[in-house]
């Protein structure tokens, strides 16, 4: 069997996360949703997802929920992601490469500024 990280390691990380949560009373929750239909996956949505997760890790962004959805009927705009912060309306981004996902995570999710040139206008 390969040497796998132990559950004790995980336990320690969990305790640290709980400590951190106690220290930080209430942060606005952010939710990032990646479209992962066949069209999205073929267009690179997994790399987009990876970039989102890597940025959470690298920039130590707590309290970000990452979800998936299926095809949204806009296959030509894939990979598509949606960002929802607190009570603010959902923002939909199209043709989100790994590089752009990283930028959206830094500027919008962490910084609170919508990356307007990548937004898909919605009704």
């Amino acid at each position, binding site marked *: 069997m*390969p040497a796998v990280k132990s559950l004790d390691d*995980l336990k320690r*990380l969990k305790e640290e996360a709980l400590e951190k949560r106690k220290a930080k009373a209430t942060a606005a929750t952010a939710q990032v949703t990646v479209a992962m239909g066949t069209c999205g996956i073929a267009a690179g949505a997994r790399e987009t997802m990876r970039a989102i997760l890597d940025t959470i890790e690298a920039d130590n962004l707590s309290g970000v929920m990452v979800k998936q959805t299926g095809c949204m009927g806009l296959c030509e705009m894939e990979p598509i992601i949606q960002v929802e912060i607190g009570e603010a309306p959902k923002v939909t981004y199209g043709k989100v490469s790994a590089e752009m996902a990283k930028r959206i995570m830094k500027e919008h999710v962490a910084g609170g500024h919508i990356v307007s040139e990548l937004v898909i206008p919605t009704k």
Partner: protein
Amino acid sequence: MRELALHLLDIAENSVAANAKTVKIAVEEDPKKDWLKMSVEDDGRGMDEDLVARVTDPFVTSRTTRKVGLGIPLLKAAAEACNGYLRINSAPGRGTRLEAEFQRSHIDRMPLGDLAGTVLSLLIAWPQIHWMFRYRANGTEFTFDDEPIKDELGDVSLTEPSILGYIRETLQEGVGSVQTSSF
């Protein structure tokens, strides 16, 4: 699709859509016998005989927003182009098992790609599902079950940066250890 791992991700999304509670993903390679097999097995709603028979047809889908589903036909075509096959066993209420086999050395066989990335994406995005993953090659095996991790975490999110790092490293090291020890 450029990687078999991307096909696995796509097929596993069907299991999610079928309301599966547990999804098992397995990949096995045998360079000597020259095959590569992968399977996705779920306990979702399953399909009747008629739908199974037609599901590899690019003009069948269970989705109602659009009428064309391409995931399974794409994988079937890829497997058959490499002297392989795609097989589906399913029954209503009993779940679905999809298996695809490839001639491993076939010139048209896609690379396996980022298996760890595929599993990571699935378990982060669908934490309510129990994910099990097994990767075996030449007698070396890596198995991953997300349940002990989620039991330990309780209500601590899988996307907490340090937790995410733990899971990503576990998957990458596990997949990597099979690949380096086997080939």
